[in-house]
């Protein structure tokens, strides 16, 4: 088992470095930091622009491989270089990482737990009203992209604030309100008010996907011999279902988890941008528009690390659930 995990980790490390290098090379080729200086008035002399770009390791007159070597050397020492404005990328991303992390983790926990729960309940009462309702709803949810869902949520929340509550219950912009003087509890409530809509927008899709998948897996094991044996052994129906059926049905879902994580990161990007959270996803979109090669490459690297960390976590969970893997 340890050997297996070690081999996995090694191959993940190789994948991360290749993926990050690829992302850097793509970004350095496709983005054009020089164009940032084109609309400045007064127009800076070419020599000054060149000197500045070289200082930031963004000069397209330097050969691509040489720029890549400088960047990769920095990354190996934990330095992601400088943004187009000259500020260090590390400082900026360190602040933003926490924001994205909070959003993704809350969304992930809500989404996967509720999804598994809904799917399992639907499977236990197959073709009951709950099963039909959730099947219909998940079809609908899977047809709504996050960009539409987030905007619809904002519109509905604004409407509800005005017409139902008469005050601001749902806050639709940012992570917290500035200048609150209400103490710890007030801050907490304020954060929750900001958190609720982005979390819904992020986790509803996950719930739909996970519940469909969990339902199918659960249906496959419900009629299995080992569940009948567990019942015959004298376990209550609830215990047989949770201890034996659910646990077995979770195994393929855990593998599936690794595949959905990339989609979750993408969803977090849209959610951050639309709800005005200053996280990594928002910065990615902004830095593509400002031709900020180093920031784009750094965020790509973090995304690759996150996807592979999720994949590794799913390996571990798999081992925890399935004794055959541990052997």
């Amino acid at each position, binding site marked *: 088992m340890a050997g297996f995990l070690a081999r996995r980790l090694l191959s993940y490390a190789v*994948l*991360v470095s*290749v*993926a990050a290098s*690829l*992302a850097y090379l*793509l*970004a350095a080729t*496709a*983005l*054009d930091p020089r164009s940032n200086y084109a609309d400045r008035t007064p127009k800076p002399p070419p020599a000054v622009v060149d000197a500045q770009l070289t200082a930031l390791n963004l000069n397209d007159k330097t050969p691509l491989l040489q720029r890549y070597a400088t960047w990769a050397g920095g990354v190996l020492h934990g330095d992601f270089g400088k943004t187009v404005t000259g500020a260090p990328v590390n400082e900026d991303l360190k602040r933003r990482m926490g924001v994205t992390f909070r959003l993704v983790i809350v969304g992930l926990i809500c989404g996967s737990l509720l999804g598994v729960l809904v799917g399992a309940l639907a499977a236990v009462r197959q073709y009951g009203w709950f099963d039909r309702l959730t099947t219909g709803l998940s*079809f*609908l949810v*899977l*047809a*709504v*992209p*996050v*960009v*539409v869902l987030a*905007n*619809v949520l904002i*519109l509905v929340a*604004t409407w509800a604030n005005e017409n139902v509550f008469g005050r601001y219950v749902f806050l639709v912009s940012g992570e917290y309100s500035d200048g609150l003087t209400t103490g710890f509890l007030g801050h907490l409530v304020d954060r929750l008010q900001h958190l609720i809509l982005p979390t819904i927008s992020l986790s509803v899709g996950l719930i739909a996907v996970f519940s469909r998948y969990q339902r199918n897996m659960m249906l496959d094991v419900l009629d299995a011999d080992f569940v009948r044996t567990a019942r015959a052994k004298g376990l209550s129906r609830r215990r047989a279902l949770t201890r034996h059926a659910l646990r077995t049905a979770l195994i393929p879902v855990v593998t599936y988890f690794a*595949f959905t994580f*990339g*989609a979750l*990161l*993408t969803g977090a*990007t*849209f959610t951050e*941008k639309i709800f005005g959270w200053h996280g990594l996803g928002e910065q*990615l*979109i902004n830095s*593509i*528009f400002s031709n900020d090669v180093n920031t*784009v490459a750094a*965020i*790509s690297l973090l*995304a*690759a690390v996150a*996807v*592979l960390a999720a994949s590794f976590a799913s390996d571990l969970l798999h081992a925890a659930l399935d004794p055959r893997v541990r052997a």
Partner: protein
Amino acid sequence: MTLSEEQLAEGFGAVSKVPSRTRVVARRFFASTQGRIGFAVLALMFLLAFAGPLISPWSYTDKDFTAFMQPPSTRHWFGTLQTGSDVFAVTLRGMQKSLVVGLLAALISTALAAVVGSFGGYFLGWTDRTLSWVTDLLLVLPAFLVLAILSPVFGPGQWALFVVMLALFLWMVTSKIVRGMAISVKQREFVQAARYMGVPPVRIIFRHVIPNLSSLLIVDATLNVSTAILTETSLSYFGFGIQPPDVSFGTLIADGSKTAVYAPWTFWFVAGLLVVTVLAVNLIGDALRDAFDPSSGRRR
């Protein structure tokens, strides 16, 4: 007539009565409510997108300078934008682009998945290791991220290039499934027979392996249409996909969401059409999967 001849004759009689596979699948597809609804709605959407502009009095380039930001009326069925454009005409124009982009991207990506997956599964060894590694590598970076980084390359009017790039980042998961199935098809007698007859491997893959995976590929291509439309929408929403002067669902939703609070018609019509289209495609994909799967009918 000997007994064996009689059996033979009976056998042939029975064979001629067996309907073709396409027919069986089509019958099972249209027997399900999902399939019927999905097919009807999608057909309606196509009709709307491509025949709708013919009956509309306004074209997507027309500007009505007497009506800015007006709600739906008999003159402008879906209302007008800030610029005086007719929302109905513009929405249909965006819908055409989104449908075409979705269909093409899904076709290309499924074809790619079929080729990569079956080559890996058939040849195994180094070919497989290399192809699997490339597949894994592309799965590490979220497709949106790579496409967004590449967005400056496909500038205004280059939507064909965008379709190709979109397809290049949608095929990975399918190719993993195809690879697994190709490994098992390789063991089947007809493939073995073809190999011993000296048919070149590439020919075996295209003539025997891929056709035997067609049911998976058709279902996957259908579901990829909705994935492609959704990805296109998200990319275009942030300005990374379809660029002006072209319009698509994504660009329209992005513009509409800014004015949705006081002019709901600029947002809800296009958002609704997008959701209905994707829903119809998903229903068709699901019904097709059931129609192709011989065991699914018995479970109900």
